[in-house]
């Protein structure tokens, strides 16, 4: 989900009527104000308005000044949030609860999984500490604790709890952790065939897969499993070294290899 505070849409008059539907997810609106410009007319609607379901109100054409003020305020910097319940400012990132009234807050869109789980943004990670943080968070955030609370609190607890689940699952395993770290740096593994793949490597993968497929005894399977695990450990070290040095392309290549071997490791349980 994109983290924005001010989002500017330029659309035709025909598209205007569908704008409210585009932002049906109120959650992402809690932090955004939306300005739409249509030729000379400026239509301004805020998150409050959309929550009330009213579409937009046209602003007068005054607006040489209005334009420049719109342009000035366009920013993706973090806005200071206020607690939806008591109005006090919510300073910390990520914010789970208001420190004044202790009401559960909506998830912080700008927080990374590392911030949510209170871990340094490094590939090397203490998984025991991660697990403890996960349990501590779910103890207070899980929707089971909110069955007698207001609808809004239940909703926020659901979102927070789901997000914590996602963050935990992503950071727990080296493969997903590494891929997430690349994502944070704007790097993705594209869908589709890897045209530059090393044929020798693909051949090796084929042979291991075929051996696993053809294995007739538990011992054979375990042997292949052990070799695969060794390969994965070796790749983990290489990924850590590459990410530490900021060598993203190298890390990406190792993560791709890891993906293939992780699939093999999953198969041996079958």
């Amino acid at each position, binding site marked *: 989900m994109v983290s924005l505070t001010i989002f500017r849409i330029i659309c035709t008059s025909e598209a205007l009527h569908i704008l409210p539907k585009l932002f049906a997810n109120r959650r992402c609106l809690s932090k955004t104000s939306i300005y739409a410009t249509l030729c000379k007319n400026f239509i301004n609607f805020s998150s409050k308005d959309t929550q009330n379901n009213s579409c937009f109100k046209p602003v007068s054409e005054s607006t040489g000044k209005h334009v420049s003020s719109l342009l000035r305020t366009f920013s993706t910097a973090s806005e200071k949030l206020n607690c939806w319940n008591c109005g006090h400012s919510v300073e910390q990132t990520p914010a789970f609860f208001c420190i004044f009234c202790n009401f559960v807050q909506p998830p912080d869109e700008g927080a990374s999984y590392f911030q949510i789980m209170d871990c340094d943004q490094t590939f090397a990670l203490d998984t025991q500490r991660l697990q403890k943080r996960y349990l501590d968070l779910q103890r207070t955030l899980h929707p089971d604790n909110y069955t007698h609370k207001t609808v809004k609190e239940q909703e926020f607890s659901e979102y927070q709890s789901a997000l914590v689940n996602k963050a935990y699952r992503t950071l727990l395993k080296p493969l997903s952790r590494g891929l997430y770290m690349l994502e944070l740096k704007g790097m993705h*593994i*594209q*869908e*589709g*065939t*890897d045209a530059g*793949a090393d*044929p020798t490597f*693909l*051949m090796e*993968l*084929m042979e291991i*897969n*075929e051996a696993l*497929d053809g294995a007739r005894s538990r011992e054979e399977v375990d042997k292949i499993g052990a070799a695969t695990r060794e390969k994965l450990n070796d790749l983990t070290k290489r990924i850590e070294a590459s990410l530490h040095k900021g060598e993203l392309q190298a890390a990406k290549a190792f993560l*791709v290899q890891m*993906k*293939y071997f*992780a*699939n093999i490791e999953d*198969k041996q349980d079958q």
Partner: protein
Amino acid sequence: MSNNTTSSFGRGRCYFKVVDHYENPRNVGSLDKTSKNVGTGLVGAPACGDVMKLQIEVDDQGKIVDARFKTFGCGSAIASSSLVTEWVKGKSIAEAMTIKNTDIAKELCLPPVKLHCSMLAEDAIKAALQDYRVKQQDIEIEAVKASN
């Protein structure tokens, strides 16, 4: 299976196509990749970690007489490669080159999230055809050298 059941899936026949290829895959196996009549395509998809090997055997008239595949990946990837081996048998090299991932996806009714599997199968057959072509060129070069 009753009509009610198939219609409840919406596209009943399509649903069973992928399952059918997965449970009864056609042409699983290997051909001798050292043979001069065999082209081998070996492709991988990094995002999902699938690997696919597709081989064709071509006769002296340039017609594909046999095709085998081995795919390690999801059901859609297996079905896509299985389908391609069915399709190329009896076709010429030129005809086989025209196989598109969109045809494969349409035949198997692949959902959007699985379209890359059909792409992988298209790349595999193209790689096998290319490998065969390169082999034939090498043979020609050798023949020219030998006659000089």
